[in-house]
């Protein structure tokens, strides 16, 4: 009897799964076109899954091992079950293999169940609580019905009662694992996830690569809606990416805005996008809500605005403006979902089409348009801080080895100290450098993160035109935001440069023995990784190497390196200033205090400003350039400055 029922069940479930898949794919195809190679993507998918994805999953070895056992067991069991029970192939070997696969899957499912006994708050509940049981049902059912085929039990063992029981288990298992995979159950992550890996919008991310620059917005067509208004305005593979979410909540656990009680939860945001693409309300969402926003009040569909002008739609604007674009969520996401891209896409619509950049946003954008800097300072005052330094200006010298990019920190009295310190270091090392001076403009970082792509592109194009007038080998800057934008985001507008962050540059100077440093005499020091240097550009080592060169042993914070917690200063967050329960820099200062450090070394004007905004008493905040400048032994180069200097210049020329 099972010989007839099983093939029917298996192929019925498969057929329904195919129908579901077609339906799901048509949902994704509501999105805008995106150029990816479908076949090459599919070919690259297994490697992306086994290497890149598991590299992220592997950070949690418990769930990594569990996933290998369960998913590996399931894929093998599914294929073998189709052969053994669907096609009724009589093979002892296949049957034994199926037994092994289901056993592996069952053991995995036990560990999944254990994680679900007292699940951490970041995990979604709801249907996800059912998943371990469904996994067990599937694996147990196919294990038991395979026993006769493997020759362990006689055919017809247990009579019709057991057969009926097994059929019920098989139906449950197939329902969750085959049908649910494409009709929207927890197993949807396997189907959507595999295709998302294959057709990811940033293929450069895989194979050890990095792709962090925002995608430019095409401004050529005046009639096109700018940015994302409705879920269908995302590209189709972005929609696919949202659908791949496993709701593991790793993003939620690292999100600084969520921790600060601001109304953002990256996981919920992605789930809201899934609600948007399929249509419906968020009432079925079973994870942590946006802080302060109850679940069940928002709804939408693929062709309705995501953010309502008045009242509620799918997402509230303040959710989108809470993000600091620190990329912690993207870094942690095992499914390689691009939260920041999605948020900036939606911000673009709010800024460029609706003119609804909150709080100081509009003022900052107006300043950038009128004065090329966010503070609205006179562009002619950019060099005032260096009035006594006699810096070579490119407009006069025309060519140089190193262009020192000042950034808007040039208008900020605190950052001017950092810049002066770095100039001192450059001079001590005998570097041939120059500045653009008043010809420099804001890099466009803030405008772009606030969604004003038009102002970003305008600033970027004018900066690129200015840079094209002069000859230099590389750019060095003390601002990781300018660093990132110049290095990763000007390329698509025609500006390709060799760009260094000042810590990397100082590290190189030290390696080349161009700096004479005395040892550190102060107390305990910790280092705060800026997001735009670390996660955006992978530079974790150079600042630490410089600190080591100073004789400082860094007392690392629990969250450092790629897990560094944002200072709260990125993405225009201090400008849009969405209220929460606490301030992000206060939380970061708590992290710093836990190390017992008396001083925190930083490498970013934003981080400096945010951390120094924490009330005293608190550890001192010093830029690495300041620490190096203080440790310079200047007598040495005073003695043989005349002898040494020409040599250095020759070496660099």
């Amino acid at each position, binding site marked *: 009897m099972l010989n007839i029922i099983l093939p029917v069940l298996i192929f019925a479930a498969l057929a329904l799964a195919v129908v579901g898949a077609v339906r799901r794919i048509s949902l994704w195809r509501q999105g805008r076109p995106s150029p990816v190679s479908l076949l090459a993507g599919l070919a690259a998918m297994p490697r992306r899954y086994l290497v890149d994805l598991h590299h992220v999953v592997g950070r949690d070895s418990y769930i990594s091992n569990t996933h290998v056992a369960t998913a590996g067991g399931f894929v093998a069991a599914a294929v073998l079950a189709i052969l053994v029970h669907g096609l009724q192939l009589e093979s002892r070997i296949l049957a034994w293999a199926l037994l092994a696969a289901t056993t592996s899957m069952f053991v995995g499912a036990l560990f999944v169940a254990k994680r679900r006994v007292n699940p951490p708050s970041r995990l979604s509940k709801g249907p996800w609580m059912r998943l371990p049981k469904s996994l067990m049902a599937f694996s147990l059912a196919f294990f038991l019905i395979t026993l006769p085929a493997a020759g362990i039990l006689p055919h017809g063992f247990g009579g019709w009662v057991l057969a009926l029981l097994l059929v019920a288990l098989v139906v449950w298992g197939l329902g969750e694992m085959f049908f649910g995979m494409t009709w929207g159950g927890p197993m949807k992550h396997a189907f959507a996830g595999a295709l998302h890996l294959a057709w990811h919008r940033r293929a450069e991310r895989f194979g050890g690569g990095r792709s962090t620059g925002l995608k430019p917005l095409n401004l050529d067509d*005046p*009639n096109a*809606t*700018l940015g994302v208004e409705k879920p269908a305005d995302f590209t189709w593979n972005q929609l696919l990416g949202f659908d791949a979410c496993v709701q593991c909540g790793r993003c939620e656990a690292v999100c600084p805005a969520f921790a600060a009680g601001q109304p953002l939860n990256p996981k919920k945001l992605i789930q809201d996008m899934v609600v948007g693409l399929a249509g419906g309300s968020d009432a079925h969402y079973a994870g942590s809500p946006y802080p302060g926003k109850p679940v069940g009040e928002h709804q939408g569909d693929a062709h309705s605005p995501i953010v309502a002008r008045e009242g509620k739609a799918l997402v509230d604007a303040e959710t989108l403006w809470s993000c600091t674009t620190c990329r912690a969520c993207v870094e942690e996401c095992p499914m390689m979902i691009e939260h920041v891209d999605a948020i900036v896409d939606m911000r673009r619509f709010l*800024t*460029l*089409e*609706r*003119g*609804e*950049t909150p709080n100081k*946003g*509009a003022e900052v*954008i*107006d300043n950038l*348009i*009128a*004065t090329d800097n966010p503070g*609205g*300072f*006179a*562009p002619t005052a950019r060099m005032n801080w260096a009035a006594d330094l006699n810096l070579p200006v490119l407009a006069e010298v025309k060519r140089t080895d190193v262009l020192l990019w000042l950034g808007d920190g040039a208008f900020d009295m605190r950052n001017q100290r950092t810049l002066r310190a770095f100039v001192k270091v450059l001079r001590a090392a005998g570097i041939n450098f120059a500045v653009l001076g008043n010809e420099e403009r804001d890099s466009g970082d803030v405008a772009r993160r606030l969604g*004003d792509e*038009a*102002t970003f592109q305008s600033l970027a194009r004018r900066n690129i035109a200015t840079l094209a007038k002069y000859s230099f080998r590389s750019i060095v800057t003390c601002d990781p935001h300018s660093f990132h934008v110049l290095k990763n985001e000007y390329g698509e507008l025609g500006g390709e440069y060799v760009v260094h962050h000042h810590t990397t540059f100082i590290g190189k100077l030290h390696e080349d023995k161009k700096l004479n440093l005395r040892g550190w005499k102060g107390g305990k020091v910790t280092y705060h990784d800026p997001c735009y240097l670390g996660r955006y550009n992978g530079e974790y080592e150079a600042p630490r190497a410089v600190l080591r060169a100073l004789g400082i042993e860094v007392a690392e914070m629990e969250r450092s390196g790629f897990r560094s917690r944002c200072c709260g200063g990125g993405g225009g967050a201090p400008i849009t200033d969405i209220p929460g329960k606490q301030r992000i820099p206060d939380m970061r200062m708590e992290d710093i205090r836990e190390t017992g450090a008396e001083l925190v070394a930083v490498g970013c004007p934003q981080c400096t400003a945010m951390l120094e905004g924490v009330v005293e008493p608190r550890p001192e905040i010093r830029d690495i350039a300041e620490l190096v400048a203080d440790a310079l032994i200047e007598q040495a180069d005073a003695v043989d400055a005349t002898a040494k200097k020409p040599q250095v210049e020759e070496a660099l020329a």
Partner: protein
Amino acid sequence: MLLSTPRSSADKTAIKVAVLLSVGSHPLTGRGRRAEQDARALEMALALPQADAQLIHAGRLNDESEPALRSYLGMGPQQMTLIQQPKQADVLPALEKHLRQLGPKLILCGSRAEAGEGSGLLPYLLAEKLGWPLISGLAAIESVDGSSATVLQALPRGQRRRLRVKLPALLTIDSAAPVARQSAFGPARRGQLAEVDAPVQMDTEQEGWEVQPARKRPKRLKIIKATSARDRFKAAAAKSEGSGGQVLKDITAAEGADAVLKLLMEEGVLRVSS
């Protein structure tokens, strides 16, 4: 189109409001922009329920002025009427002709232009030509009905005066009026600039003028001998003009003239010569 909110002119209850808009100039960089007060005037018109805002600019359309003019359209309206006028033209006759044709109930504009002559006289001359009442230094329009409007006029140090004015009227906006909404790139780019031909009258008087950048005038230092923060605050917030003076009510013209004459002599503006 979903992106803008102006009420349709077909709406019978709509009150036609003409907003006169000029090309502004940023105080630090001199770059063209929406003029601060004109933008507030437009904001006031857009925020007025039942208002059918008509945007009007008299001047030239070129690469310099277009982004500035479009930034008004970025606030939501779909169209702006551009009365074509060459550089040295006196825009007053052209504006008058157009406004008479349009027949608005209200005309809103900033107190003075940010570029060019910037005398602040245009609203007065226009009101005189049209024979309409003018209220200067507007902070808010409280209500408008078919025949009159209740408005708040801004006075120094946050004081307000409520006025009732018969329509049609011309209102000039003070910097105390609500800040203009953000101008968005998309609508600004899509908005229509409808060009209208108009008679040109050259400003011949201006040809004889010599224009030079304004010099910063010396400012009298205010010496504050305050010892505490409270005293300093009081000094900073104190009235700048002298106290005293008197309010004269229900007096004859001759008495009034005597009072004014007496004051001018006291202040040393007029000297007693004989």
